[in-house]
């Protein structure tokens, strides 16, 4: 903390200086706290399952601590005025996510499955890659406004990334959703997670230029501002794109995420409520339209409307029905208010995707309502810091980019948590940082890196004082 005090003599009053504290030490303290909580979670799991402190505790703690330390030092060096909360919150979520992934690795029931593999070491590796990307973003992206130059390039990049899974030979269809690509020797990645960031850059750059046309050129009709047809173009294109994703990749979550992010950014750029109304109507129409003829989406909707029926059908061995929605609800239910304790729940009964899409159910069962609320609050705090960054940013591009990235983050949390809890149909997305999944962890670390870069620029003390009002004329009072 640095506070500039006014050097003044005893007899003059001290005027508080506008010292913007860098708050790096606060961040360090919170980071240490976060790593300790994660280590506690890890030890707790070991004690509950095996009755002893896990042997990997030291290496796990050191690994996470090392990642956090590297992240902190890089922030200290390259973004000294950045927000002090984002890094600790992301580290804590990543850390307890790792602990719970490891906890699911220890489950006997999951170990008997043919698809079982030790996910925790890979997840630790993914986190390391994520932090590496975070470092790269902070070191090489000196100013987020550089991204503005790549507005259309990032659009093309996003579209290519989104289309990659459809390329025959490259894309793989896993459990009904075609959102992965297979890179020989490296495993599979989900390009959609990275497309999220590229699209946010494109939207921010595009809307910054076009927002006046979108905001002002409109007719008023029944209290709504109706935009002109030519201004509707981009929103229709994005809508069509997200519907296409939905149809060809049957990925409800990603298409909702992209469209929602665009509508949020459009609203922030233009302050027109009509865009939100249009957005909601269009996404509803699109979703209903696709759901009426796409069988994969239909299944999801069925499982959402009547999970018990789906469960019974799948117990009877009818193909194409899922038992997971009901199992997740049971997990939340048996957790109650305070949960069963880490390592003592039965959420591993959710056989498939227990440590990725459904990891929130494990938290729900083992930490209860209290724990899930705390975790959702942490996500909320990350989003709040992102929005706060957008408010503080001095340039419109940074504002829009920060709001887009934090909006996408919030939407992703909503879509996943809502899906697992049965509020909306389940989609194949992963909880940022918590869930097992390389692309998700890596992309979200990059996202946090960009937000930290913007917040560093936003919170940096103003370089030059504003032009003095002394130059302005004083108005004369005329009686």
């Amino acid at each position: 903390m640095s506070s500039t005090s006014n050097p003044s003599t005893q007899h003059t009053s001290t005027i508080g200086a506008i010292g913007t504290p860098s708050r790096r030490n606060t961040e360090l303290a919170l980071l240490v706290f976060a790593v300790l909580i994660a280590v506690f979670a890890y030890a707790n799991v070991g004690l509950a399952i095996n009755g002893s402190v896990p042997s990997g505790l030291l290496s796990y703690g050191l690994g996470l601590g090392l990642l956090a330390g590297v992240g902190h030092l890089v922030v200290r060096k390259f973004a000294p005025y950045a927000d002090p909360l984002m890094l600790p919150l992301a580290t804590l979520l990543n850390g307890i996510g790792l602990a719970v992934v490891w906890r699911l690795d220890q489950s006997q029931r999951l170990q008997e499955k043919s698809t079982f593999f030790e996910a925790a070491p890979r997840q630790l590796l993914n986190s390391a890659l994520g932090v590496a990307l975070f470092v790269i973003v902070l070191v090489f992206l000196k100013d987020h406004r550089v991204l503005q130059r790549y507005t259309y390039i990032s659009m093309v990049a996003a579209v290519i990334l989104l289309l990659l899974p459809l390329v025959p030979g490259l894309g793989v269809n896993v459990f009904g959703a075609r959102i992965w690509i297979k890179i020989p020797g490296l495993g599979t990645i989900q390009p959609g997670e990275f497309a999220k960031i590229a699209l946010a850059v494109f939207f921010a750059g595009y809307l910054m230029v076009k927002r006046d046309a979108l905001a002002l050129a409109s007719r008023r009709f029944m209290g709504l501002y109706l935009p002109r047809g030519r201004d509707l173009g981009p929103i229709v294109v994005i809508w069509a794109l997200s519907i296409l994703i939905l149809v060809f990749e049957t990925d409800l979550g990603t298409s909702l995420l992209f469209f929602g992010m665009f509508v949020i950014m459009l609203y922030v750029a233009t302050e027109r409520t009509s865009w939100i109304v249009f957005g909601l109507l269009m996404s509803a129409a699109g979703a209903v339209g696709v759901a009426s003829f796409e069988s994969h989406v239909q299944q999801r909707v069925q499982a959402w409307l009547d999970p018990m029926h789906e469960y019974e059908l799948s117990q009877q061995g009818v193909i194409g029905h899922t038992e997971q929605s009901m199992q997740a609800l049971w997990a939340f239910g048996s957790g109650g208010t305070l949960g069963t304790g880490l390592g003592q729940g039965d959420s591993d009964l959710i056989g498939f995707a227990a440590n990725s899409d459904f990891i929130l159910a494990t938290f729900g069962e083992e930490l209860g309502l209290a724990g899930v609320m705390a975790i959702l609050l942490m996500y909320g705090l990350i989003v709040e810091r992102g929005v706060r960054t957008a408010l503080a940013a001095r340039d419109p591009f940074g504002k829009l980019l920060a709001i887009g990235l934090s909006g996408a983050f919030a939407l992703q949390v909503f879509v996943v948590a809502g899906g697992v809890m049965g509020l909306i149909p389940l989609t194949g997305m992963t909880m940022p940082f918590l869930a097992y999944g390389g692309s998700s962890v890596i992309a979200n670390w990059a996202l946090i890196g960009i937000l930290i870069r913007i917040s560093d620029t936003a919170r940096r003390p103003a370089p030059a004082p504003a032009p003095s009002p002394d130059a302005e004329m004083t108005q004369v009072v005329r009686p």
Partner: protein
Amino acid sequence: MSELTLTVMRLGFLAVLWLFVIVAVQVIRSDLFGTRVTQRGSRREAQRPQQAARQGAPPQQRQQQTAAAGGGGRQRRGAPTKLVVSEGILTGTTVALQGQTITLGRAHDSTIVLDDDYASSRHARIYPDRDGQWIVEDLGSTNGTYLDRTRLTTPTPVPLGAPIRIGKTVIELRK
């Protein structure tokens, strides 16, 4: 592991998780942009302007908040100890009177920066004369400085509680 240990750990973990959230929220609270009032000198005096700051001068004005500096000591009984802004954007701002000259105006280096179209850059100043009597003087402003209802033409002593009007701002001296 005994049941008790596990229960303690379970509740302990939730408590720690929430503690983190609460600490994070506290960081946000203390991380609000704006100024920190430097406390110097006697504590009793230093607290007052801080309270005024909380009562809601708008953020960009908050930098104008002044903290009381210690010292003084040779003040007479009945002499004003602070200057209070009672009307205008800066309402609630107080400046401790410590024998220093207080300048008012739109200029950035004024003691009280008036964000007011009707104020001049260097509008007026308030200073103590040799007897410790506080004097207000108009510095040739466009719209004039008013003490009560009369426009100032010469440096005039300021009685306690008399309103000094500059543009939309009214200030007064208080004990």
